[in-house]
């Protein structure tokens, strides 16, 4: 195994955002973002399409200029530095491999630009090819590669340079579902192995949850919450984060309605909306009766759509799925409830 690469890849760094903001004309794309990506951390930036994830990544890379704030790599202010002086590597959504160069030349390009001796280039290219399983593809051009192989080359092109940090912009979104899952695992493994600092952008919350050390949820250029996947799932700061993470989506019910229909006896002060995770609904014989509206069977678990007195809920149960049209008794796990105020903030 290319141990050499793993060792040299440990030229890691922290990336610090200090009040980073970006405007396009009058439109504010990014508000004022301040957080730090720790040494060796895999931070996932997640949010719906158009929330400014790519813009933020491009700002960090130096491809877009900031309107406000500073960016520091390893404590050094790089706000004004050209992309090539930041020593970061980026993997683009469309891979952006050089179409006229072979895989080997694609991998070597960045090293040649940096005037590395030919022997070392060859060594590194071979190491990366070995690491990513590209040995047999080195003489091909990108046109003759599959989507997954292109993706690997794109990652290889970033790896070979052993940059301070890696930036990924939705790298898996052009792959089919099966390959996406496979590459996700490979990326996670790669990160564990190299322990490099990575910033990973995606709109896919499953990708975010499975890959991340920490997740930053972005909405219209404003940071909603930053924390580990578990923290975000169990204690979402607001309704947006609660809704964004988790499949199926969290059930959100009006607090008053729940009181009226006697789902619960008390409601905390100022609670307007109540969030109920699908897995915190349990079926019990003496529970509140509800009609089974629809059943989605996934094999190892089932999603049961319930209609209880006009309130629609989705429950996730592992076995003994009831039949459609049947009436079942259910109970909500009180401790798993999420209360939100009028501004959709967590109480």
């Amino acid at each position: 195994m290319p141990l050499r690469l793993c060792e040299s890849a440990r030229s890691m760094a922290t990336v610090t955002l200090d009040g980073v903001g970006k405007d396009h004309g009058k439109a504010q794309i990014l508000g004022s973002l301040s957080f730090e990506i720790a040494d060796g951390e895999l931070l996932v930036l997640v949010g719906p399409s158009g929330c400014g994830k790519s813009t933020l990544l491009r700002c960090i890379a130096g491809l877009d200029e900031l309107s406000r704030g500073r960016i520091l790599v390893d404590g050094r202010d790089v706000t004004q530095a050209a992309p090539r002086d930041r020593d970061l590597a980026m993997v683009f959504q469309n891979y952006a491999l050089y179409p006229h160069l072979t895989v080997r030349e694609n991998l070597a390009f960045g090293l040649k630009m940096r005037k590395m001796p030919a022997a070392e280039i060859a060594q590194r290219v071979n190491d990366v090819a070995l690491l990513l399983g590209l040995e047999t593809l080195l003489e091909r051009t990108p046109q003759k590669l599959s989507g997954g192989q292109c993706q690997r080359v794109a990652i290889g092109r970033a790896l070979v340079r052993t940059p301070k940090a890696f930036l990924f912009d939705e790298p898996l979104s052009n792959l089919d579902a099966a390959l996406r899952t496979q590459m996700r695992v490979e990326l996670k493994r790669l990160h564990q192995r190299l322990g490099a600092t990575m910033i990973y952008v995606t709109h896919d919350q499953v990708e975010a949850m499975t890959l991340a050390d920490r997740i930053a949820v972005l909405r219209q250029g404003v940071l909603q919450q930053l924390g580990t996947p578990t923290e975000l799932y169990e204690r979402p700061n607001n309704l947006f984060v609660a809704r964004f993470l988790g499949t199926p989506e969290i059930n959100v019910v009006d607090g008053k309605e729940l009181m009226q229909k006697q789902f619960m006896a008390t409601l905390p002060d100022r609670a307007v909306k109540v969030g109920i995770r699908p897995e915190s609904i349990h079926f019990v014989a003496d529970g509140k009766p509800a009609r089974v509206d629809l059943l989605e069977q996934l094999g190892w678990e089932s999603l049961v759509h319930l209609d209880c007195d006009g309130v629609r809920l989705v429950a996730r149960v592992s076995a003994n799925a009831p039949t459609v049209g049947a009436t079942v008794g259910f109970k909500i796990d009180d401790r798993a409830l999420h209360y939100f105020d009028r501004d959709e903030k967590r109480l």
Partner: protein
Amino acid sequence: MKPSLAIRISIHALLLAACAITLYPVAWVVKTAVTPRQSFSPSPNPWPSTWSLSNFRDVLGTHQGATWLFGRQLLNSLLVSASVTIVGVVLACGAAYALSRFRFIGRDFSLRGFLLSQMFPGVVTAIPLYILLDHLQLLNSLAGLVLVYSTTAIPFCVFMLKGYFDSLPHELEEAVLLDGGTHFDAFFRVILPLSRPALAVTALFSFLTAWNEFILAATFMSRPASYTLPVAMQNYVGDFSTEWGHFAAGAVLVSLPVMLLFFALEKHLIGGLTEGAVKG
């Protein structure tokens, strides 16, 4: 699924007919060229009844005093066309790239200006250009002709290349920037090599514009020694009689380099333009 035999036969018949219609006048020119007379043959048969190279010998052998006129005119045509090609492609490359990738003051104005200059037929400018060239003492000079042709070639080349550059994803250059290169590296190492098909088309167009142009050359060039080939051919068409045999032989000779150029660039012209740069 393969189309049925009947359909394939009719498609081929149609294509053959189209080729025949297109090539008929060409065959006729060839016939006139190899027939050792200076008159038209009234027969519709495009196949020559006699074969002779005398017309070619006459055209190739034109002399004015001690100078070999045809050779001189061929050289003129080649020099002018090659210069226009080089000037056109080199200048258009840089301009098109800047117009495609950067936003700067005067960008929209330049684009509109280029477009505007394409809207007038070249002849309209013949008289003002004549006066200009006269002032610059560039009448009867190849440099003057190169200058004039470049004004039509460059705008076209710029639009052609800009369209192509626009189709290349920005990420390619951004990848170079992150890989440690500069904008120059991105342009010379990635964008230009990728643009070979577009460059071939633009080069061919520039060459052809200059090679085939007649009216301006005839206006600005008054000495046979500074004629380009189209102007020289015109001289076989006289006021009272026309030497059709010589004219046809000259036409064939003039077309040869163009045909060679097409064959040489064929690989780039066909298919190359549609090749995508990024897998989607």
